[in-house]
């Protein structure tokens, strides 16, 4: 059977024509408005409370809409944006080092390996400056210089210092800013907060997204919530690999359920493998921990020149070390983009020069920086990261070099959205990591926080008004046949998972799925490997539904049931990721196909055949998906072979 069929091409019809720097202004002016008196009669559901969802829910409520917010954690403050360490980019040019909106736009389009939309990326760069203003006004304690002004630092893929930060906890501080704005609205009664609730289905009435089915994770109660529009801000799907830097609860269920109901899933194979994570220590490993990319500002990456050199790293003399990033990429050195740094680490380990007990690791060494700046300066910059490293590994990075290895970190793919961040289902908006729109095939460091807050604070609140203004929509409630059907589907699925009562745990399946994905759909992909992975995923999925064992009942706090539902969806997503990776016969950004590389081993794009967004339409379980192509046009940043040499 064919793996997919091709359908009609699609176009992003909402992006206005005209010069790129005028498009957002034009769209804002042309977008319809909703009268303040009418806003309070309208309800918007927001799923997820990270940077995108939290900021969107707070902002919509400030504007006067009635908002219902949902998260699976016990508090909206815990969404995984909180774990972002390094920083947030903004084109403020406070350093006077040549930065501008246009340069941030240029760097982001290039960093994404020419697989993102120019219109979206330009808008992102424009609003980046407003984000910093907004966060400072909220009391976000960014790092400052002695004069009292904001400090910035460098990040991968850029030669200007445009990254604002709050020590190694930038995501936490930005998220708490959004969370506090959200709590203010909860206190005012404009946001109805539902923590420990998980969205399990989307409700579509007359072709429009009108509600969701949620499970109360404490009581197990299933309820149907209706609204005028639904916003998904449910994050990325990196946990399809089982081991990733994502929080344990991160999952694809909200977006996957929407995909099954008609929302196109775009570029699912674009995943970001972060180069600096703590290596796996054993089979018990439940997650991987990131060491911020900011460490590459001062740390130098190296491996021994000779294979199997097991000496203590401090005993290996300078001339027997290979600082391979500095050697191969002299102009960017240790600050090459993430995809490039990750593959370079994989290559030296494949050559047998990896370090540590598993030989899947490279050194990140601060000895030079400590000599140059003193231990105190390094402590001030990275103290908390060094402590975290020591807690996990039992080694002191002030004395011995850190060992790092790449790990799954972020997913650039996600639900397809137009310029208004609306999916292919009217009334369903998707923001933050859950959508696909701004990072192309590779996201630059410190750009996820920027995009999440751009979408939530500034873009969505404008564009969703345009949709809502076309109303009023007919009043519908949970007794509508479409809502009842969605709810019944959820209940049936829970019963099916509980009824299998087999002999393998959910985690054992998840771990095995993750191994297949890491092996064949990770840092390097090939046709043979992907075909094998698709067969293995299908076989394992069948096993899952015959042998999984979920304890307890649906009417209680049941973490094993929660996991089972999420893993069941990961199986379906995993197959689509492999199909997407297989069909894209080129290498670009984080998607590296072994068959498509330049003579010196860099990613070889094929712009003639693949300069498009691959948007996949779901047909039926086990039936081939339909591919819709959205052609990408580059009028301002002309595609070139990315070079960081």
């Amino acid at each position, binding site marked *: 059977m064919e793996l997919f069929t091709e359908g009609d091409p699609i176009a992003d019809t909402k992006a206005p024509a005209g010069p790129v720097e005028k498009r957002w202004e034009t769209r804002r002016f042309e977008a319809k408005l909703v009268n303040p008196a009418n806003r309070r009669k309208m309800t918007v559901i927001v799923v997820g409370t990270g940077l995108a969802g939290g900021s969107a829910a707070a*902002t919509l409520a400030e504007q006067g809409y009635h908002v219902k917010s949902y998260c699976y*954690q016990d*508090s909206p*403050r*815990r969404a*995984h944006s909180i*774990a972002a360490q390094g920083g947030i980019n903004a084109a*403020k040019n406070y350093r006077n080092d040549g930065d501008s909106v246009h340069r941030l736009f240029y760097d982001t389009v290039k960093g994404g390996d020419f697989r993102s939309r120019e219109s979206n990326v330009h808008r992102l760069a424009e609003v980046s400056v*407003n984000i*910093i*203003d*907004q966060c*400072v*006004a*909220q*009391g976000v*304690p960014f*790092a*400052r210089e002695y*004069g*009292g*002004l*904001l400090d910035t630092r460098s990040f991968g893929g850029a030669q200007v210092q445009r990254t604002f930060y*709050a020590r190694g*906890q930038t995501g*936490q*501080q930005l998220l*708490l800013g959004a969370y*506090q*704005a959200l*709590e*203010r609205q*909860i*206190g005012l009664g404009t946001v109805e907060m539902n923590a420990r609730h998980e969205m399990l289905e989307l409700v579509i009435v007359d072709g429009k997204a009108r509600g969701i089915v949620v499970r109360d994770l404490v009581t197990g109660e299933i309820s149907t919530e209706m609204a005028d529009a639904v916003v998904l801000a449910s994050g990325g799907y990196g946990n399809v690999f089982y081991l990733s830097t994502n*929080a*344990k*609860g991160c999952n694809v269920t909200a977006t996957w359920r929407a995909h099954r109901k008609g929302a196109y899933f775009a570029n699912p194979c674009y995943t970001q493998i972060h180069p600096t994570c703590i290596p796996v*220590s*054993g089979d*018990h*490993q*439940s997650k991987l*921990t*990131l060491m911020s990319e900011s460490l590459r500002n001062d740390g130098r990456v190296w491996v021994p020149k000779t294979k199997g050199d097991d000496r203590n790293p401090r005993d290996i003399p300078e001339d027997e070390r290979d600082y391979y990033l500095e050697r191969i990429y002299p102009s960017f050195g240790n600050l090459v983009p993430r995809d490039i740094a990750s593959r370079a680490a994989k290559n030296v380990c494949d050559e047998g020069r990896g370090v540590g007990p598993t030989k899947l690791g490279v050194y990140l060494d601060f000895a030079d920086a400590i000599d140059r700046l003193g231990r105190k300066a390094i402590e001030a910059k990275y103290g908390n990261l060094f*402590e*975290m490293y020591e*807690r*996990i590994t*039992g080694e002191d990075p002030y004395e011995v070099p850190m060992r790092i290895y790449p790990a799954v970190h972020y997913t650039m793919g996600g639900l397809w959205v137009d310029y208004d961040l609306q999916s292919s289902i009217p009334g369903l908006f998707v923001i933050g990591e859950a959508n696909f729109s701004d990072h192309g095939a590779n996201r630059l460091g410190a750009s996820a926080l920027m995009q999440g807050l751009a979408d939530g604070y*500034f873009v969505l609140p404008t564009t969703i008004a345009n949709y809502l203004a076309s109303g009023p929509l007919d009043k519908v409630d949970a007794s509508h046949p479409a809502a009842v059907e969605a709810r019944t589907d959820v209940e049936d699925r829970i019963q099916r998972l509980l009824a299998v009562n087999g*002999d393998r*745990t959910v*985690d054992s399946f998840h771990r095995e799925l993750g191994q297949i994905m890491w092996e064949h759909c990770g840092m390097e992909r090939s046709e043979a490997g992907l075909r094998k992975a698709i067969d293995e995923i299908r076989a394992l999925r069948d096993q899952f539904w015959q042998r999984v*064992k979920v*304890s*307890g009942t649906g009417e*209680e*706090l049941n*973490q*094993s049931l929660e996991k089972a539902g999420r893993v069941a969806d990961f199986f379906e997503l995993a197959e689509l990721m492999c199909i997407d990776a297989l069909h894209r016969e080129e290498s670009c950004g984080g998607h590296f196909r072994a068959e498509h590389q330049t003579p010196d081993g860099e990613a070889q794009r094929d712009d003639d055949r693949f300069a498009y967004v691959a948007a996949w339409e779901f047909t039926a379980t086990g039936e081939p998906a339909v591919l819709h192509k959205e052609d990408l046009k580059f009028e301002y940043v002309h595609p070139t072979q990315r070079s960081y040499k």
Partner: protein
Amino acid sequence: MNLTLRIWRQKGPEDKGRMVTYPVDDVSPDMSFLEMLDVLNERLILAGEDPVAFDHDCREGICGMCGLMINGDAHGPQRGTTACQLHMRQFSDGETIDIEPWRASAFPVVKDLVVNRNAFDKIIAAGGYITAPTGSAPEAHSTPVAKANADAAFESAACIGCGACVAACPNGSGMLFTAAKLTQLSLLPQGQPERYTRVIGMVDAHDEAGFGGCTNAGECTVACPKGIPLNTIGRLNRDYLKATAVRGDTPGS
């Protein structure tokens, strides 16, 4: 390593609860504490028993979701470390480890080791913010902030809202949590306009939620995985006194 775990099991808020003993063998010193519980749960599921419910998410010490009393210490024996970042190399072979939920009247048990910390959110909703609706912000550099104040604000802002301070406190007080947020916002120029209404709102919400009062026992700051200093509570008290003497919404106050 071979260990004996004694874990608090409680089916729901109404259940009385009890300690149950579980032997766990072949624990690697490189495992995190929660990975060790994962191993136990995998075994319980296959044996047809109910796995131990515990909260966790990021497993890198920043989301604040995990929280266990381990041998009577909030987050266990290692200073400045959340339960998810605690590794088994901190324990010895043959050890018996007691694992309990946070115990405080403001944090009712939901199931086993899971508690309801919604009271913290209510304290924030009662004033733990700066009112700055989206779009209203001035240019970020229009108000410089002295580096010392910015750094001290950051130190307090590092709170992860895990609740260890409450669990460690003999009075079940949430003062360190409340004071951390108040200190952050009162050290910044942006936080001045609401400074005194904020402290009254948050302290009232704290008391209404059923937290106990602070008697300067100081257990909270020792248990805090982020090292929030005790002097934040002094700042809270000072602002609270001033706010009650001079109402914060009085012009000129």
